[in-house]
């Protein structure tokens, strides 16, 4: 065996808490090691060239890359190994960054841990075998869940790029929340007009199939050929789509969760969303006194909403400005924790609005007390440290974004994950903010956390571009990690057949043993752990591989 070990410094990320020279010395002593190399960044071009030339020059038959975790750069490293003439399944990634240099501070202990982890990689890869990925054709089409601005933006991009798009919206019309926003900041247009423009464009594209009043009811398949059943007004339809974009948006926070605000009890307490929908319906007249409350349903641990919703400060400012502009002699006071007017132009807008006469008071509001003459706000001015009570004619709650009600249902249908706040979780918060853990399933817009329109549109388009890039290749590789049976060992007890959830194991009545239908096998390995005769094994995770990893982790270094 000719094993090559490539240790990455990752700049200082690994090098500063792992002794690279120590590792190199240790592994040079081991048998079967053809080379031990290190480099500041293995993923850089020179790093890649080092790996490739070593494979070619030394005729390596195993490549161990000790660097970041295998979720990152895996395709790139696999292609590199393939280009160098080695089967990519003889590559082993060892995570000495996410699982070692970043989780421990003691250099000596980290170095010992890295030694064991790399040994585990070496021992287990000794049992690796060259595997072939099956190439399958992909269906150049996308299923988009949610017809808000993010889903529509993704749909428009993909359709113009020539893909079939199935856009599924649960309400009876497209548009989501933007349709309800009367005055879109900063462009000051009606949300409905923006949406109507987009709908019109989508309707001119005959490869866009819009399903309103519809929802996803079942989901399966794999990248390139996902199978979905959509329940529409006219019954159920089945579609095959190459990829999926989840864009089911948010739910506006329901302030009745906080009874002290009297929302839903007193008509003089309303939300910014109701204000946007119809300002004229509200009891506003010359000289009205209006209070606006920031951070309703945001930055509030007591109700499980610790995050900032990013849009509600601007909404509060916009609301104050609008009342000041339209209602003569009005008195508008905005009560905030901090003013986070972060989008471009937000800070200037905040200053202009103050100049127009909207008063901003830093306060904690403890209670809203409805009285006949007016609504009393009771709270504490947190700059002056003084308690106050003030009377208003109208209280407007600047509501934040809560996760969509359907997040859990969609997450479990698609088998993707939600984060701690119940928004959809991205594969990596910085490097892969559009991807989920599943190939070809992307997230877009506010379903992955609060965003304004600009951010939602960008997110939708970016996910569309990424999906397009994947599907446009026209083919996909299916991981060859499926189960297989050793006919000489199988006793025909059929225990694996009973266990297999995917029903991928079939009993052969003539031979009295089982066989695996590879296309149906999900690759879980349950059968492998069930078989009493060690006759069925999961490729890539065979007993010998795991056994030897255990040995590597428990032996002394």
């Amino acid at each position, binding site marked *: 065996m000719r094993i090559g070990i490539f240790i990455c410094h990752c700049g200082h990320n690994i090098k500063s808490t792992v002794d690279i020279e120590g590792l190199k010395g240790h592994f040079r002593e081991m048998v079967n090691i053809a080379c031990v190399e290190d480099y500041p960044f293995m993923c850089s071009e020179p790093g890649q060239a080092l790996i490739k030339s070593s494979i070619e020059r030394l005729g390596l038959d195993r490549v161990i890359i000790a660097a970041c975790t295998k979720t990152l750069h895996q395709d790139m490293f696999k292609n590199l190994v393939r280009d160098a003439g080695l089967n990519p399944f003889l590559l082993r990634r060892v995570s000495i960054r996410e699982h070692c240099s970043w989780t421990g501070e003691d250099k000596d202990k980290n170095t010992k841990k890295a030694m064991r982890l790399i040994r585990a990689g070496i021992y287990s890869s000794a049992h690796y075998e060259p595997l072939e990925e099956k190439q399958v054709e992909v269906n150049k089409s996308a299923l988009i869940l949610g017809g808000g601005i993010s889903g529509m933006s993704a749909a428009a991009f993909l359709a113009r790029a020539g893909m079939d798009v199935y856009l599924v919206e649960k309400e009876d019309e497209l548009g989501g929340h933007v349709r309800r926003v009367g005055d879109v900041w900063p462009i000051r247009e009606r949300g409905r007009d923006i949406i109507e423009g987009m709908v019109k464009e989508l309707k001119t594209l005959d490869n866009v199939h819009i399903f309103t009043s519809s929802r996803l009811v079942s989901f399966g398949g794999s990248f390139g050929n996902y199978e979905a059943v959509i329940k529409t007004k006219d019954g159920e339809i089945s579609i095959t789509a190459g990829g999926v974009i989840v864009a089911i948006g948010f739910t506006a926070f329901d302030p009745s969760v906080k009874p002290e605000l009297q929302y839903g009890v007193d008509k003089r307490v309303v939300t910014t969303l109701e204000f946007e929908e119809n300002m004229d319906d509200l009891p506003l007249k010359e000289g009205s006194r209006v209070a606006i409350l920031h951070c309703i349903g945001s930055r509030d641990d007591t109700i499980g909403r610790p995050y900032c919703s990013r849009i509600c400060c601007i909404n509060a400012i916009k609301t104050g400005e609008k009342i000041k502009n339209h209602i003569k002699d009005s008195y508008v006071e905005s009560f905030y924790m901090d003013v986070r007017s972060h989008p471009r132009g937000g800070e200037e807008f905040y200053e202009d609005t103050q100049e127009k006469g909207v008063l901003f008071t830093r306060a904690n509001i403890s209670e809203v007390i409805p009285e006949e003459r007016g609504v009393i706000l009771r709270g504490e001015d947190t700059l002056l440290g003084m308690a106050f009570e003030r009377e208003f004619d109208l209280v407007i709650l600047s509501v934040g974004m809560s996760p969509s009600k359907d997040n859990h249902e969609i997450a479990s249908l698609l088998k993707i*994950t939600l984060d701690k706040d119940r928004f959809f979780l991205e594969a990596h918060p910085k490097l892969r903010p559009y991807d989920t853990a599943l190939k070809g399933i992307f997230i877009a817009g506010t379903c992955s956390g609060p965003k304004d329109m600009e951010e939602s549109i960008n997110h939708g388009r970016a996910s569309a571009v990424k999906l397009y890039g994947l599907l446009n290749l026209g083919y996909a590789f299916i991981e060859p990690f499926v189960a297989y049976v050793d006919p000489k060992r199988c006793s025909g007890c059929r225990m694996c057949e009973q266990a297999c959830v995917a029903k991928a194991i079939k009993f052969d009545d003539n031979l009295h043993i089982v066989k695996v239908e590879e296309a149906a096998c999900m690759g879980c390995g349950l059968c492998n752990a069930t078989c009493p005769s060690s006759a069925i094994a999961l490729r890539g995770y065979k007993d010998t591989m795991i056994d030897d990893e255990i040995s590597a982790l428990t032996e002394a270094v």
Partner: protein
Amino acid sequence: MAESIKNKNIEIVGFACSYCSFKASEMAGSLRMKYPEGVKLIEVPCSSRVDPAFIIKALIEGADGVFVAGCHPGDCHFIKGNYYTRRKIAALKEMFNAFSIDGRLRLFWVSASEARRFVDKVTDMYNNIKEKKK
């Protein structure tokens, strides 16, 4: 071989499901969360891949503790692999109980987003075993 580590450090071998707990451990690393270096992971596609023999082997070879970490009930990527895991671990624990070593085996449910929970679970297990070993 195993003797030399046996008495010095606490060594824990964890089997982590690639869809959830392993992802959580990656996130814990990215967020620079710290946990004892004695905790080392073996990635498995699903917690149901874990053969009880692996657990016994790890203990015999000198590990002070073994854990299996999978997706929360109902969230298994392979539909219900984790229910099989739960059954297997319960049976194994019963057996370990007879030898008073049941504290050396744990099963946790940790989703991909629960980096903090992952770190808390492994640290707690580590501290617990360390306490007993004193």
